[in-house]
């Protein structure tokens, strides 16, 4: 058995680990842009090969898969999906675990994902608007700036998945701070437009969505084209710093409760979230006529307006969320992959350990918004200390050079995982480990991580928030007004923003 993996982050290290512990004892082959020290070790140990190359080069990856005669290819990150790597690999008759280009649109275009959801009337929706340019967005936001339409409290996003960058949430409720927030909004849209210029594969550049509040969670699934199997819920933490302060990152740490649920999500909410993801898979399969084989994830939020709500979708495992679930996975991952290839996932019993997990990412200062500062710092890690502390190391954006030196790649350098009876226990374990300073930047550059991930305080805060939101959406549900919105504008009258949105969608088609 030979397996080729693509991608060089901590999530991919977790995939490689899961593959390495398979009873099939596969030979592991890998392609990524930087040489991940952890994956490299596993590849060498298995007798496979590691190639440095572009993970978006479909031709390169497919021909390497042929040359190495691998039995299957597994894709880690989203960009190879967007670039049609799974399509090219399968065209050569090699099975691939990874969403094809047409299917990965649910992640690549946040606007397309949302349109699909509205057209198929799948629960958990948000109001949205897209714009092709700064001036178009600005004109629209200004037109309504003195009224209380939903456009006052918005999340501004790049319309295309852009490495988790560029999202700003501007809640503009305090009239006395309106001018400050408005001018910040305008400047950010201008920045977004520039940033999005580098992506030429999409026409809509800017997405404006209604701002919602509530606890977030990620539901990751295996999909074989027929069956969607949900994994334990994970809570990722996007803010760069402690207390949920600071810019949005790819994720600074995540935790699972024990079992399928998080301490603040009910079984009913889990089931509803799973239904949403399943319906989205059905919808995209129907629209494209292709079969979805790979990972999919719903990044969810419990909201007052709809209950479980879809914020974004991943056509892959989350990072760090993938690290949590793969550490808990008890079923042989190759067995699952084979079942996904043969469309018999429904026959496989996918088991996870009941332990809680916490993952904390360690990043060089400068990440996420000033990556040039965060690059090329030599780093040394004492793996003995980490192991002794009962933690597991997952290398991320790091490059093992020929000389044996390891330097940072600019993104999250590594992730530490610990198991426990509950998240606070696992979190403490990582804290104790880091107190012994197993990580050192040899040039003295600083690094950071979040000490609060999985802590008692954090979980308590999420629980209070979830209860507040649950009361509200349950009330709406009881009155049959889940998902209903209504605006009123002076001189215009009542406006049903949902109807307006649907009318626009119909006109577009």
């Amino acid at each position: 058995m030979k397996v080729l993996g693509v991608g060089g982050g901590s999530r991919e290290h977790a995939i490689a680990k899961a593959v390495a512990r398979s009873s099939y004892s596969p030979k592991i082959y890998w392609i990524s842009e930087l040489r991940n020290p952890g994956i490299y070790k596993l590849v060498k140990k298995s007798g496979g090969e590691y190639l440095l190359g572009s993970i978006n080069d479909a031709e390169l990856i497919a021909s390497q898969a042929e040359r190495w005669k691998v039995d299957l290819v597994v894709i880690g990150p989203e960009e190879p999906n967007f670039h049609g790597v799974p399509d090219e690999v399968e065209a050569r008759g090699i099975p691939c675990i990874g969403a094809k280009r047409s299917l990965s649109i649910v992640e690549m275009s946040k606007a397309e994902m949302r349109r699909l959801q509205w057209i198929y009337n799948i629960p958990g929706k948000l109001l949205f608007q897209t714009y092709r340019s700064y001036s178009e967005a600005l004109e629209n936001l200004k037109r309504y700036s003195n009224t209380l339409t939903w456009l006052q409290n918005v999340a501004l996003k790049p319309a295309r998945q852009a490495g988790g960058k560029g999202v700003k949430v501007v809640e503009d409720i305090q009239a006395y701070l309106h001018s400050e927030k408005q001018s910040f909004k305008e400047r950010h849209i201008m920045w977004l437009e520039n940033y999005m210029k580098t992506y030429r594969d999409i026409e809509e550049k800017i997405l404006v969505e209604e701002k919602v509040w509530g606890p977030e969670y990620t539901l990751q699934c295996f999909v074989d084209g027929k069956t969607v199997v949900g994994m334990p819920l994970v809570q990722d933490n996007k803010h760069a710093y402690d207390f949920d302060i600071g810019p949005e990152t790819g994720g600074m740490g995540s935790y699972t409760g024990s079992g399928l649920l998080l301490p603040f999500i009910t079984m009913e909410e889990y089931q509803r979230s799973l239904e949403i993801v399943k319906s989205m898979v059905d919808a995209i399969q129907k629209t494209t006529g292709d079969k979805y084989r790979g990972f999919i994830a719903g990044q969810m939020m419990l909201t007052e307006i709809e209950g479980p709500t879809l914020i974004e979708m991943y056509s892959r495992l989350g990072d760090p969320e993938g690290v949590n679930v793969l550490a808990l996975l008890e079923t042989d991952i190759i067995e699952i992959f084979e079942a996904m290839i043969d469309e018999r996932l429904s026959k496989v019993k996918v088991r996870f350990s009941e332990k809680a997990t916490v993952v904390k990412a360690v990043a060089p200062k400068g990440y996420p918004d000033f990556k040039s500062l965060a690059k090329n710092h030599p780093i040394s890690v004492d793996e003995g200390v980490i192991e002794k502390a009962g933690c597991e190391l997952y290398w991320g954006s790091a490059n093992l050079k020929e000389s044996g030196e390891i330097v940072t790649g600019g993104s999250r350098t590594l992730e530490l995982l610990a198991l426990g009876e509950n998240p606070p226990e696992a979190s403490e374990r990582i804290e104790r480990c880091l107190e012994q300073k197993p990580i050192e930047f040899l040039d003295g550059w600083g690094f950071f991580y979040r000490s609060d991930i999985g802590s008692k305080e954090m979980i308590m805060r999420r629980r209070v928030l979830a209860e507040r939101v649950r009361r509200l959406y349950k009330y709406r549900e009881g009155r049959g007004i889940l998902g209903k919105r209504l605006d009123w504008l002076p001189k215009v009258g009542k406006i049903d923003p949902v109807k307006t949105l649907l009318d626009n969608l119909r006109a577009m088609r």
Partner: protein
Amino acid sequence: MPGIVCIYPFGLGRENWKIARFVYYGLLALQHRGSESCSIITFDKEFNVISKKGSVDEAFNEEILKTLSGFIGAGLVSPKENDLPITVSSPKRLILIYDGKPNLDKNRIEAWRAFAEILSDEIYRTKDSLEAATKVLQEVDGGYSFVALTEDQEVIIARDKYGVKPLEIGSLGFDLGAVVSETSALDVLGMDHVSTVKPGEVIKFDPYSIERRQVERRANHRYCSFEYVYLARPDSAVNGISIYQVREKIGEVLAKERSIEADIVIGVPETAIPFAIGYSKASGVKMSLGFITTGRRVRTALKPSFFERLVGVQLKLNPIKEVVDGKDVVLIDDSVVRGTTLRNTVWNLKKKGARKVHVLIGSPPLCSPCPYGEEIPPPDELVARSLSEKEIAEVVGADTFHFLTLEGLTKAIGLPSNALCLSCWMRGERT
């Protein structure tokens, strides 16, 4: 009891924020902590500091706010005219805003100046602000909270080991972090309250990270009990405890401690209203609206001169005749300092027809100066120190007069007395 605000943007485009207005509204929300002086600090390439006398909305107007550029901001309001941000120019340039008092000098301002200088030296020496502040916090006793902004765009946030003075952390979207004396300032700014700075905790914001460190913990906290009774806004939480709930509970405790036959209970606006609500709930005595205020809200007890306090009270407390006429009234006030304004109030009620006036105070007798610099008059001006409850009743013209007991206070706060600073209610002087 100054009020502290600091707003700090993170991430890409952080320089795009114009932060002065955020500081202004944060300070406005903390105005009750003092209105004799008021300062706004912003940082662009340099510190801009504007300090003025008086309340926030008197001191700052649209014109000034418009010209105040800068993306990092901080501010201070204080009941003392000379409480201004402290600037140290060398060796490490920094600006410090503060509440409480470190034990470095008898004079509070001198103590803070010394503190700021030590901090500046220590940062310069260690080249590590977090380590420097941790060391200073470890070594300097007292009851204090502070925020220091350095020329390197760092913000150092800390509370003394006992946690005497409050300090809270907030967040807005993916952009702003904030530090404030009370959570209500976060509400006003539309921010989320995300944490309380722990006693003995040092937090550092810099452009690329937030770091925290905890100095050796003291066995017991010494949370200021005066915050719960009087200082903080009822819509704030201090140390995770809701001020409103404590005050309502004080009313309930008062009802249990003193059973009084009366027709109505009224509270002196605004602090004593929740006491009256709690009292009414527990005793069954009907609560009514007793007074209407003339002019803008002022915290009369914080006014420096007797005359200003009296003017304040007379304007603040016009009794509604129909409410009190012919009634036996329970009047609840938050504290008694000299008793002079209370005397005026009781006299007013009787003039409007109240038959009996029973006075209850939602705090124990105020007997001693605050070791951490709270504005409390000298001991010989404190009526509770010289007179018994019975004598005070006679002086202010009330039919009965009672303070809340010390046990009642700790019960209402819900913390053991060794977790609270109760110095001002104690007869023996403790520092």
